[in-house]
């Protein structure tokens, strides 16, 4: 499952539900600090890593299309099962992305793939 968003905006929001669907929305291209909005794209995927626990890993990537260094905040929300009960879990990551580079802003394992995940990425130039 892959998502690809071309964004000309400050933030990107993606959500995956059951069944996993590509529901994404780009904010308006506006920057609050007067600087031009950061240009970047995001990509997310579920992967069976096949390591020690056959871990399923959810990965979010950010690719900068900006000539400036950008700083990104990635928020993630997903679900996991504990004692048969579905629970929600969230996380937040800060990442620095250099011009025209792609980085994995986070890798999360232990989440339930069927329940999907939601993430948002906010980037600004520094």
């Amino acid at each position, binding site marked *: 499952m892959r998502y690809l968003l071309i964004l000309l905006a400050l933030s990107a929001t993606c959500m995956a539900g059951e069944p*996993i669907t590509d529901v994404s929305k780009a904010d308006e291209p506006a920057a609050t600090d007067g600087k031009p909005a950061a240009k970047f794209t995001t990509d997310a995927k579920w992967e069976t890593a096949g*390591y*020690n*626990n*056959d871990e*399923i890993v959810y990965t979010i990537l950010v690719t900068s299309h900006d000539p400036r260094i950008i700083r990104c905040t990635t928020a993630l929300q997903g679900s996991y099962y504990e004692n048969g009960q579905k629970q929600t879990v969230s996380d937040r990551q800060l990442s620095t992305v250099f011009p025209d580079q792609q980085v994995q802003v986070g*890798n*999360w394992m232990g*989440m339930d793939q069927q329940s999907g995940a939601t993430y948002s990425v906010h980037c600004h130039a520094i």
Partner: protein
Amino acid sequence: MFVIVYVTLTCVGGPAARAADLGELGRKIFFDPSLSASGQMACSTCHDPRYAYGPPPGKGIALGGPHLDRGGTRAVPSLRYLNNAPPFSEKTRFADGDVGPGGGFTWDGRAGTLQEQARIPLLAANEMANRSAGDVVRKLEKSHYAADFQQAFGADIFKHPDRAFDAALAALAAFQHNPKEFYPFNSKYDAFLRGEIELTEQEERGVALFKDPAKGNCASCHVVLSKRGQPPLFTDFDFLNVGVPRNPKIAANADPKYYDLGLCGPARRDLAASREYCGFFRAPTLRNVARRDVFFHNGVFSSLRDVLNFYNDRDLHPEEFYSRNSDGTVRKFDDLPPGSADNVDRDAPLDRVPGGTAALTAADIDDLLAFLQTLNDGYVAEPQSTADAAQHSDEYAWKVLVAVNQPDAGWETWASANDIFRPDGADPGPWKSAARPVVVPIDSSRFEAFSARELPNLHRVANGKMVPVSDPLASATRLTEIHMNQAGYDYIRARALYNVQGQLHAVSSGDAVSFPAATKEVKAKWRVISEAERGRYYTMTVKLADGAQRLYGLTALHLVTKDLPTWFWATFEHVDNPRLPGNDGWQAPSRDTFACGSAEPACNRAPSGIGLEGTVWENYRLRGTLTAFVDPTGRPNVLANSELEAGMQPTSSCITCHSRAGIGAVAGQPVRLPIFANETPKSGFMGEPRAQWFTNIQSLDFVWSMAKAR
């Protein structure tokens, strides 16, 4: 080799006891911790059958006494291959014509017989710590086998403590004459001597170095000659002083005036005046030496490589082995009293001078270590039979399991997939025999690991929160690993399949990738287990990055052999798996016609008669074997392991999944087929391979581990 069978022993009085019965009684005594003052120390505590009746890992110099707090002064020796030890004599004539002290039991030969030897630990204050023979007998009288004892030696035997104590020692000695337990002569080297197998080139080089008087010169004491039809014992029971460094971990060595000088005391007293014998200890057999983690009489070294380095560099780099004087100078031979270094052995390789050349290179030492591995008991040749794989699949699976799990020479000594497919894609180099480590470092070179490059910001759910994973292996509740034997390893090297470029070249060459029939590969899964579960599992002790140790038990094992063109597939699981948290249970019954018979192939038991009785392998089950994609009616064959195919058992087929192992090039970029179908939940592939899979992909002969190549 000799075997005592039904010999009558009357030396201890009472009714004649058959040796076989006496041996069984001796076995009970041997394993009985109630015979110690602490109630926790049996003979077997230190002389553990799992380690060739030598010490378990980390217990080489044991704590004993009533409260298990009194330190030993010597390394625990193995009790194997003592059956033909001659009595001690100062006039022993050795094979090279020398005459000198030789024979006897214990490091200083002070016990003349196995009975005398057995007396020592029972009464030693820092071992089993009984106050007297009568003390031991009172415990024997309360033991669960007291009636057996009376049956063997008479109803009134306990009324005669001295006779009863001697009887117990005789029983212990009889037990130690059990050939299966104490002198099995079933190492790989024994199989080689019998002409059943060949040694590897490295092992052959190791033998030559072992014998070469100018190189290892090991055979001058650890003799390799067969005597009177008996395979070599790798000792001539000679005594010598090699100047072993002092071991500061021995509590008694805290006293600078204390020296353990072997033949001339203090444990042995009759030769105290023979100063020429000071520092002399008996050369032990080297059979099973590679299974020890404590070496020489004082246990100063903890690895066999360190021992060989000591022999090689003692005189070239003494600073690496010995302590220093207060002025900073090296105190060579620091476990001998000052001025008594004249007794130290100076035969090669202990004949070097500083600045000279070592007798052995690093490669020589690797070769010697490889040879010494062949002296471990319990070798079983790897089976290789197309007919058995095809026609007696379940029986063949068990036989392969036994062969590849033999102590210290099994699949854990094979090359791991991460060793073969290096991150830089380089040639992994010639095959190296490796010992099964006593403690396994948690290392991504062995276990499947998250790559720092691939997963830089790894988080996992813990207690409802996402937490960073700084050490993915340490945080894994299960560990997975893949190993391949030498036949497969050598093929990968010969065709340069260890990197992507080599694989692309191979599949485009017109010479199909086809592994040799002797190839075997294993995929294993371990889970963290408690100490209480140790006895039920094949175990591995792992050392974490912070130095802590963790016990793992083997939960699952895939065995794959190239006996058939489409390989032979078998999978085993621990019988406890369905009860584990996170395990989906066995969603299809096991099928094992060898253990269960054809009428009830899901009987859920291990087979008898192949040596599994009394071992942890009784707790493992063959879940099934595969030799074809479909059954005779065309239905896909399914075989799953609940640990290794978690979440996809109903759609799992080893043979079909692995048929997809391949590589191709699209637009100049290497491509492979995905391991799993792109579905949720995860699913596998079953049935005959489909031609469309291979539009752009060429087969890599079912070996998925090749996808690790860079």
